C-alpha cells in the first residue's frame, strides 16, 4: 500500500510547492516585467548614445563609438541647457514640495473656511492646458518689467505648476494617517513641535520623497510653459526640441543616460549607507 501512496503524495507536494512559489513570486515577476516595459525606451536611449551616426540624425544604428561620451558637451549649448534644467528642477521641486506639504497638512487636519475653494484652486492648474497657462503667465511677467525673463521666471512657473502635484501626493498619505500615534507621543510628554519632528514628519517622509521625485521629474521635462517664460534662456527640453528639427545629436542620449546613472548611484549609495548605519546601530 505504501509504495503506491508515497509517489502520488510526493507529486502533489511538488505541485503545491511550485504553485506556492509562483503565487508568492508572481507579484515580483509582474513588477519586473513592468520595470522592463518602463525602462525599455531608456535602454534604447542608452544604446543609441553609443551610436556613430552618419549625418546629423541619430535614428538608425550605424556603429559603436565612445566619441559621444568623450565629447559629451561637443554640441554647442547643450552643457548650459542641462545645467540650467538641473538647477531649476532641484530648487523648484524643493520649494514646491515644501509649500505643498504645508497645504496638505492644512487641508487634512484643520477645518477652515474656504476649503472647497482651496481644493478647486489646487486642481485648476492641473487642468489648464499648458499653452494658455504659459502664455498667460508670460503676460503677467510682461507687466512686471523689472523682472527679466529667464532663470527666475522659469523657476516661478515651475514651482507654480508643481505645487498641485505635491499637495495631492502628500495628502494621499495624510488622509490615512493614524492620529493616535501623535496622541500617544503627546501623552508621553512631547510638545507639538517635538511630535511633529519625531512622529509626523518621519511617517510622512515617504510621501514627501515621492512628491520631490515627482516634482523633479515634471520640472526637468517641462516644455511648453518653460518655452513661453524663458526669455532667451534655453533649458534641456527646449534644447532637444530645437535640435530635433534638424536631428537629435547622440549627446542628448548621453546626458539622459548620465543623469539616470548618477541618480541611481546616489540612491544605491544611500541604501548602502543605511545598511551600515543599521548594522552599527544594532545595539
Amino acid at each position, binding site marked *: 500500500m505504501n509504495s503506491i501512496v508515497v509517489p502520488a503524495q510526493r507529486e502533489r507536494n511538488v505541485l503545491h510547492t511550485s504553485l506556492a512559489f509562483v503565487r508568492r513570486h508572481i507579484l515580483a515577476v509582474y*513588477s519586473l516585467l513592468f520595470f522592463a516595459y518602463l525602462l525599455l525606451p531608456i535602454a534604447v536611449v542608452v544604446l543609441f548614445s553609443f551610436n556613430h551616426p552618419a549625418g546629423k540624425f541619430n535614428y538608425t544604428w550605424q556603429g559603436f563609438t565612445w566619441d559621444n561620451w568623450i565629447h559629451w558637451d561637443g554640441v554647442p549649448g547643450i552643457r548650459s541647457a542641462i545645467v540650467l534644467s538641473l538647477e531649476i528642477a532641484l530648487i523648484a521641486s524643493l520649494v514646491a514640495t515644501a509649500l505643498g506639504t504645508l*497645504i496638505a497638512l492644512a487641508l487634512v487636519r484643520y477645518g477652515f473656511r474656504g476649503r472647497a475653494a482651496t481644493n478647486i484652486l489646487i486642481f485648476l492648474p492641473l487642468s489648464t492646458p499648458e499653452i494658455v497657462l504659459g502664455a498667460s503667465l508670460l503676460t503677467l511677467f510682461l507687466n512686471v518689467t523689472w523682472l527679466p525673463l529667464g532663470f527666475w521666471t522659469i523657476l516661478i512657473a515651475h514651482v507654480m505648476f508643481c505645487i498641485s502635484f505635491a499637495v495631492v501626493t502628500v495628502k494621499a498619505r495624510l488622509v490615512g494617517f493614524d492620529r493616535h500615534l501623535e496622541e500617544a507621543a503627546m501623552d508621553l510628554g512631547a510638545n507639538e513641535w517635538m511630535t511633529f519632528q519625531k512622529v509626523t514628519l518621519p511617517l510622512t517622509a*515617504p510621501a514627501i520623497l*515621492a512628491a520631490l521625485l515627482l516634482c523633479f521629474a515634471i520640472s526637468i521635462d517641462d516644455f511648453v510653459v518653460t518655452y513661453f517664460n524663458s526669455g532667451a534662456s534655453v533649458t534641456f527640453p527646449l534644447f532637444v526640441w530645437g535640435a530635433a528639427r534638424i536631428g*537629435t545629436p547622440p549627446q542628448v*542620449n548621453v546626458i539622459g543616460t548620465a543623469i539616470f546613472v548618477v541618480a541611481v548611484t546616489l540612491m544605491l549609495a544611500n541604501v548602502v549607507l543605511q545598511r551600515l548605519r543599521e548594522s552599527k546601530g544594532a545595539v
Partner: protein
Amino acid sequence: MNFFHRHRGLTPYLLLGPGLLWLGVFFVVPLGYLAYQSLQSGNIDFGYAFTWSWGNYWNAIKDYHSQFVRSLEYAGIATALSLVVSYPVAYWIAFRGGRWKNLLLLFIVAPFFVTYLIRTLAWETILSDNGFVVNTLQSLHVLGQGDRLLATGTAVVAGITYNFLPFMALPLYVSLEQIDGALIEAAEDLYASKLHAFLRVTLPLSLPGIVAGTLLTFIPAAGDFINAQLLGSPENHMIGNVIQSKFLELTDYPAAAAMSFILMAAILVGVFAYARAVGTEQLTGTAV
C-alpha cells in the same frame, strides 16, 4: 509652541498662506487675464477688444465637441489602464520593497530624465511597422497583416498611459506603504482568504492613493496634445491640439482661451462627480 496652542485658529491659515499666495499671484492672476481674453474678439491684424463675446464659448462647443469627447475618452482609458498596470507594482514596492523602495521609486520616474521627445522617438523605434513588436503581434493575429501600431488611436492612448505612469504609481505607493501589515495579518487570522483580505482591508485603505493617482493622471491627460501630435493621425487629435492650433497658427487667442475654460469646467464637473462617488473625505481629507 504655545503660540500655536493659543492661535490654533491661525494655524491652518499660516500653513496655507505661502503656497496659496504663490498660486494666487502666479496662477489666479494669469487665469483672470485668460478669462478676460476669452470674452474678447478680433484678430491679430486689427487687435482684440473686450466685447463680452460669449460666442467664443458657444462656437468652441459647437465646432469641436468631438475633440472634447475624444480627449475625455482617451484620458479616461489611459487612466484606467494606468491604474490596473501600476497597482500591483506599487503594492510590491510598498510591501516587499524593503530597503530598495526608494531606488525602485527612482526607476519609475527615470524615464522623465530623458526628454519626452527622446523617449517617444525610442518608442517609435520599438513599435516600428517592421519591428519586432509589430511582427510578433501580426504572427499572433492580434494585428492584421497590413496594420500598424503607430499613427493610431491605440498609440496615442499607449503614449499617454506610459508618460503618466509615475503620476499614478507614486501616489498609490504612498498610500499603500502606510498600511500596517498587522491589519492584513489580523484579517487572515480571522479566516479571510488572501483575496478577501485584500479586497476588504488593503483596497479600501489604499483608496486615498487611488483617488490621488487617478486625478493626477486624468486631469492633465485630458489637456494633452503632444502624444496625439506625434503618435496619432488627424482623426486622433485631442482638444489640446485644437487649442494649440487656435493659439499658435490661427492667433485666435480668445478662442483658445474659451476652449481652455470649457475643458477646465468639464474636468471640474467630472472631479466633483468622482468625489461624490468615492466619498468626499477621500478627496478633501477629514477635518480634525
